């Protein structure tokens, strides 16, 4: 067999093995491929930068499921790190029933890490003062509208069953007037509802963290400013992680960076194989 026949008829199993190795490799090595920052990610970051500390809160909605976790989970963690580092209180909610488990995981892992390094009581994060997670509510449109009147009215108790009136944070943050931005983390078209209802009615700012499949749908909203900023897919999450790290808000990059490296590797692998196939095809046709 000629060399060009070999490279144009590589067994698929060889591709599969290489692909598996390349996905796993970045988890154990520290090669990082430099990132460019897409403008929508920068805008979201800049927005959070502009929120004054110890004042208005950020609402984060955890509306993704385990399947889209590799994309949305690191977004949530990077955002939490950013907010906590700047002393911006965070209120977590979910309108997707699969959200709570993931929300609790994201919040506790970020909080534990920060408190682990905290040197004083002021440095450490306190539940109910710096952050709360209110849990899941059905009927999301009605709920997100009613939160404009009173957040505590929609969520009288938090996810763990404690009355929210007992939290100093919730005594201060009553409705959207005390909310700087609501950031929707989702694999579905949830930002539509946020734009259509609470934004038109209460003028609340909307940010988004969406899967790569969903994101292109929202470019027009970015253009009009209805969405203040957006992370799209794992790439968006990795960009945000990088911004958070560069500004000294975190000690290390998160999982999206690793995932992004795996993703880049796979892209390069596919490109290389397509090229090999075409080179082989080109030469074998010339022979005929």
């Amino acid at each position, binding site marked *: 067999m000629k060399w060009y026949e070999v490279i144009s008829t590589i067994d*698929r199993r060889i591709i599969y093995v290489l692909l598996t190795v390349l996905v796993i490799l970045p988890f154990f090595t520290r090669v990082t491929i430099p990132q460019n920052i897409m403008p929508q990610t920068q805008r979201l970051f800049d927005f959070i930068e502009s929120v004054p500390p110890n004042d208005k809160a950020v609402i984060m909605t955890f509306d993704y499921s385990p399947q889209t976790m590799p994309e949305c989970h690191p977004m949530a963690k990077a955002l939490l790190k950013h907010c906590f580092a700047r002393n911006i209180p965070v209120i977590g909610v979910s309108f997707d029933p699969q959200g709570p488990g993931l929300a609790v995981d994201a919040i506790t892992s970020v909080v534990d890490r920060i408190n682990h390094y905290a040197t004083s009581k002021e440095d450490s994060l306190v539940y109910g003062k710096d952050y709360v997670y209110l849990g899941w509510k059905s009927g999301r449109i009605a709920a997100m509208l009613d939160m404009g*009147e009173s957040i505590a009215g929609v969520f009288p108790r938090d996810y763990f069953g404690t009355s929210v009136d007992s939290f100093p944070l919730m005594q201060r943050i009553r409705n959207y*007037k005390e909310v700087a931005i609501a950031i929707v983390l989702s694999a579905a078209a949830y930002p539509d509802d946020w734009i259509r209802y609470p934004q*038109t*009615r*209460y*003028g609340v700012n909307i940010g988004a963290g969406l899967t790569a499949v969903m994101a292109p749908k929202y470019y027009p909203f970015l253009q009009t400013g209805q969405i203040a900023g957006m992370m799209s897919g794992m790439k968006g999450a990795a960009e945000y992680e990088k911004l958070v790290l560069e500004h000294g808000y975190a000690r290390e990059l998160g999982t999206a960076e690793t995932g992004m490296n795996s993703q880049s590797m796979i892209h390069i692998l596919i490109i290389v194989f397509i090229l090999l196939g075409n080179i082989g095809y080109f030469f074998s046709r010339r022979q005929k």
Partner: protein
Amino acid sequence: MLAILPPTDLQAIDKPNDAGSSVNLSWKLSSDDSMIDGYVILRRLVSDTTYHEIGLTGRGVSFFEDEGTQDGQEYVYIVASVKNSRLFTSEPSNNATSYPQVFHTGRINVLLCIALFTAFLGYFVSQARTGKELFIRRIPGLAAVDEAVGRATEMGKPILYVPGLGDIDWTATIASMNILGEVAKKIALYDTPLIVPNRWSVTYTVSKEVVKEAFVTEGRPDKFKEDYVRYLTEAQFGFAAAVNGIMMRERPATNFFIGRFWAESLIIAETGAQTGAFQIAGSDSVLQLPFFVTACDYTLIGEELYAASAYLSREPLLLGSLTAQDYGKIIVLVILFGFTLFSFFNINLLALLEVQ
């Protein structure tokens, strides 16, 4: 403290095109809009004397929808600017009553479209009935159907027909059932086994009926086997896993993937390509078509899927409807060019296309 100006020109009307229980309010913003905290909306029955608060909005908003009215009751509204919990109220609105509507005027364009298209369809179908010869261009994927069936017969292997993963409310599934009927008729003439796996219980009952009727039509009801049409599972990826299993173990010589598909499209098409089967795909799922194009021998793209049953059966009535579809597209082109042209003469017709 300075007095704040209230909003003016408060208008209340029944919300149009709805099921009742809603009144739309609109007003001119207060001249002090930039200084206030927002607006409070209050309401009373005409027969009543006190106003009750029913909602509030942010500043810069001059519209409110009261979704809690009783149909047939008369209401009066006032809107107030709010500053530091003090209210500065507007003049009362006109009296308004909500009631449900019987016809949705915002959808009249859709109704016209349906009427027009039905008329086209009726006209061309009746033309076809009179025996007028109708042309249809060659569609490579469909021209290959005979070859595909013949190949399986020669090899003595089964034919796999996946009617998509959409339930019966996806029109692509209905189109797929029509194509299945034509394919099954061709198969009925030979001794080739057929496998039709289904994801939905309803499509299972329909495809079973379609295949059975096809065998009856060709005069071979005895050849039909209950096992030809199977139910697998409703789980999207469970279905894909089981179809992979069928392709690996029963080794069909020809695979048809026709209907509505989602992310599983490439999983099954690529497995089929690895078994060396001859593959014809057809779908209206724009996002899945690229995968079928790369992994299958022939792909029916978009509307070709809907032309297939006419193409295969050559039945004049069905061919007639293809002509109607083409005229529909011509009208679309005319609208596209016409509206663009008019808009440059400052006649904006886009509102005609809006549906509420």
